[in-house]
């Protein structure tokens, strides 16, 4: 077996593997896996609890939804109370009293305006836990898969900020090495997705609620599930399929977060569900309540168009903007043959010859590059999560806030104009980093992949900070 460097092992293959399939090397990972880079990647897929995020301090999505609901209600009450007292004071002519902030009964003495608001606190904790995993992972292949699927099944904090992090932990992570069908079920029934793609607003026109309220379908979730999550835009579905699938999905909603016990959880509400059997993609689905939707999702998960769509996206993300057709074919075949076993698909991805033979041309997307820079500098503890999130935003890829349900783009054209901004971010992180000799970093971060020119550029830098900046911005580090 040969690779672009004519090697299936050795430091060049190790470095290539770490950049292409992981988050880039840390300290001595190139050396560690050089004897058997593919074996190391395969082993990453077999770790117990791979993909899981153990963080007892993080709330479940339902808890977060309830807490944020309460937080907002209290804030509204505080504001209302203040307004009321100002009015009273004005009427009694006591200007001084009007200026005094009034606290809710039982509120502590702290000034709430100065505290980080709860929704932001939650996102920061979630983001930190997520980024810590990327920074500390030995290789990061499974984390890369989590990020890939999270972008594939994206949601947005602009729609709901409370549950974005929990969504990824609950719907994505448990299934990244499991069955695609289970991943799909978990995602499409998660309240965060139901909110994001408006299914909580949708109801059958002939459902009890639809008749009573004179309301009807919202097709958003059904369409994006077909177009983006499974079959792909040319996957062979019609408008009728979209409409019918939307009818199938009516009733998939959440319990209002004001409900004290189960608020924020998924619920199938029969009252909203369009009654009757539905035809989707040439097949009739009996009205079995929530199971009608589950049955459609099961079939979508094993559809050949889905296999092709997922295979293309995976190969594009990990290997090349124009992925080798042979690789896409291999991945699609394994996907179909294994009934969507994502661990087997990942194994194929990291062992296929085409995955290694492709030239290192792929421009790392912003967040992945940032993670790579932080691993390079060893400065994970020194860089606050807020700065990392700012950096993602500055590069046009704010965490969990893609502009549209198709997620962030995955090609060079989308990101290359941000190169100039990456310099500033590299300089900032390098400046905050406590880190070894830049030449040592170069060996650790690129090793044999570094060109003579890059070595010379780094060696001639005017300071460690500049050397690290130049290394993080070297073509060999930007591309994989």
């Amino acid at each position, binding site marked *: 077996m040969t690779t672009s460097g004519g090697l299936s092992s050795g430091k060049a293959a190790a470095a290539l593997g770490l950049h292409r399939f992981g988050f880039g090397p*840390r*300290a001595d990972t190139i050396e560690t896996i050089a004897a058997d880079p593919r074996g190391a990647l395969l082993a990453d897929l077999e770790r117990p609890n791979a993909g899981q995020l153990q963080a007892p301090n993080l709330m479940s999505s339902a808890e977060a939804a309830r807490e944020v609901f309460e937080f907002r209600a209290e804030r509204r009450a505080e504001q209302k109370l203040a307004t009321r007292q100002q009015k009273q004071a004005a009427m009694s002519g006591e200007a001084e009293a009007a200026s005094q902030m009034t606290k809710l009964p039982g509120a502590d003495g702290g000034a709430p305006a100065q505290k980080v608001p709860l929704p932001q606190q939650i996102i920061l904790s979630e983001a930190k836990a997520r980024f*810590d995993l990327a*920074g*500390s992972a030995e290789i990061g292949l499974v984390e890369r898969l989590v990020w890939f699927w999270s972008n594939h099944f994206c949601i947005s904090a602009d729609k709901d900020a409370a549950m974005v992090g929990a969504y990824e932990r609950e719907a994505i992570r448990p299934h990244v090495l499991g069955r695609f069908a289970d991943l799909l079920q978990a995602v499409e029934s998660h309240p965060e997705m139901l909110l994001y793609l408006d299914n909580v607003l949708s109801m059958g026109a002939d459902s009890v609620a639809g008749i009573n309220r004179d309301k009807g379908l919202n097709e958003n979730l059904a369409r994006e599930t077909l177009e983006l999550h499974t079959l792909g835009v040319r996957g062979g579905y019609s408008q009728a399929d979209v409409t019918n699938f939307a009818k199938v999905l009516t009733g998939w909603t959440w319990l209002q977060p004001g409900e004290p016990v189960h608020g924020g959880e998924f619920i199938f509400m029969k009252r909203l569900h369009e009654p009757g059997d539905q035809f989707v993609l040439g097949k009739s689905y009996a009205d079995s309540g929530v199971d009608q939707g589950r049955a459609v999702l099961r079939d979508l998960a094993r559809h050949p168009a889905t296999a092709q769509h997922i295979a293309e996206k995976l190969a594009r993300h990990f290997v090349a903007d124009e992925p080798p057709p042979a690789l896409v074919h291999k991945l699609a075949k394994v996907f179909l043959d294994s009934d969507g076993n994502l661990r087997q698909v990942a194994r194929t991805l990291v062992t296929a010859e085409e995955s290694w033979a492709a030239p290192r041309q792929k421009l790392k997307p912003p967040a992945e590059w940032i993670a790579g820079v932080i691993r390079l500098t*060893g*400065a*994970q*503890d*020194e*860089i*606050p999560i807020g700065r990392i999130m700012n950096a993602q935003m500055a590069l046009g890829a704010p965490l969990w806030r893609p502009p549209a349900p198709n997620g962030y783009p995955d090609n*060079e054209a989308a990101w*290359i*104009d941000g*190169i*100039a*901004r990456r*310099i*500033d971010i*590299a*300089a*900032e992180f390098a*400046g*905050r*980093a*406590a*880190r*070894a*000799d*830049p030449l*040592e970093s170069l060996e650790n971060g690129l090793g044999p992949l570094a*060109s003579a*020119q*890059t070595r010379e*550029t780094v060696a*001639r*830098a*005017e*300071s*460690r*900070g*500049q*050397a690290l*900046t*130049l290394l993080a*911005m*070297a*073509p*060999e580090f*930007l*591309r994989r």
Partner: protein
Amino acid sequence: MRLHAPSRRELLLGSGTLFAWMHIPKLARAEGRDPRFLTIILRGALDGLATVAPVGDPDWLTLRGENALTLDGKTPASKLDDFFALNPAMPNLHAMFAAKEAIVVHASATPYRDRSHFDGQDLLESGLPQPGVSESGWLNRALAGLTPAGRVDPRGSRVFAVGPVTPLVVRGPAPVLSWSPQRVMPASEDTVQRLLALYRDRDAKLASVLEDNSKLAPGTVQPGTMQRPGAAGPGQVRAYFSEAAGTAAKFLAQPDGPRVGALALDGWDTHFNEGIAQGRLSQLLGALDEALSAIKTNMGPAWRETVVALATEFGRTARINGTDGTDHGTATVALLVGGALKGGRVIADWPGLKPAALYQDRDLKPTTDLRAVLKGVLRDHLRADEKALALSVFPGSEAVKPMAGLVASA
């Protein structure tokens, strides 16, 4: 998560971050003084000859040709004494010099005699006689030797925090807190230029994008005039230097503020199109000059008890290189400013500029040990113990006597 325990080689001073000691030196206090001391590390190797030019040296014009600053010409240098003149980009420093509030120590250097930035910066900050493993810096070891007269501001942690990264110069046993300007300084033009050169060699696509972003074409670049969205133009560098230094001064000036601090201002590695009279170095020196002015202004009445020491890892080649810049050299200038100084002097045991007088026929020859300057200030301004200065602050420097008479009160 850290990859491995940090070694001295990993430590790097965040540009613009102030590191400060929250105590008052007791001995100086007992004399009725309340001294302030700020160290500014200039990373990248400052061209001492372009900062303070030996206009009285007969070999000066031969050496630097049209790049030599002179007292006449389009941008005349500002006369300091009969021999030296200051870069015209530094009118505030010139005024301080005239007011006897500034001292230039020329042809000075650390004991380091190689030309690696990284080793040179290590040695500048560690205070050791040669590159070697050190867990602490000279400033911290000096502080550790001063008896503190109590912590100055118990609420100091409101603005000062334990820094995420402690630079080598302030690392060590004495507790040090830090403050960073909110503003993040964009990457320097110099960094962008270096990347452009690399991209042109290695990655045409990246090069063309960066060029488009920079609105410049290959070969037409005038460093110092380049603008790119978000890049550190001269205005931004000035603003950043002034904010960092000016805020440092505000803290040091407060009656209950810290008394000793350190910060770094980077960007002095001028290998090509140096722009000594007009251009890149001129703009950087102008930014530094405004920063010094901001320090004086913000120090207020405390200025008369202040010494600011500015030092760089080494100097640059005496001659101009083939790209209108200078390469890594040896001796350079150290600058002292502050109202506590007995200033208005250029201190130099001038080595001369004839080829045989240059260090390795290449650099200004070092004739003054930078450690003598720092030891003189630490002893006479902060009342650091002379024996400790020789043994622990600058180990192995017994033969390098503290320079006397720098500070007026001494």
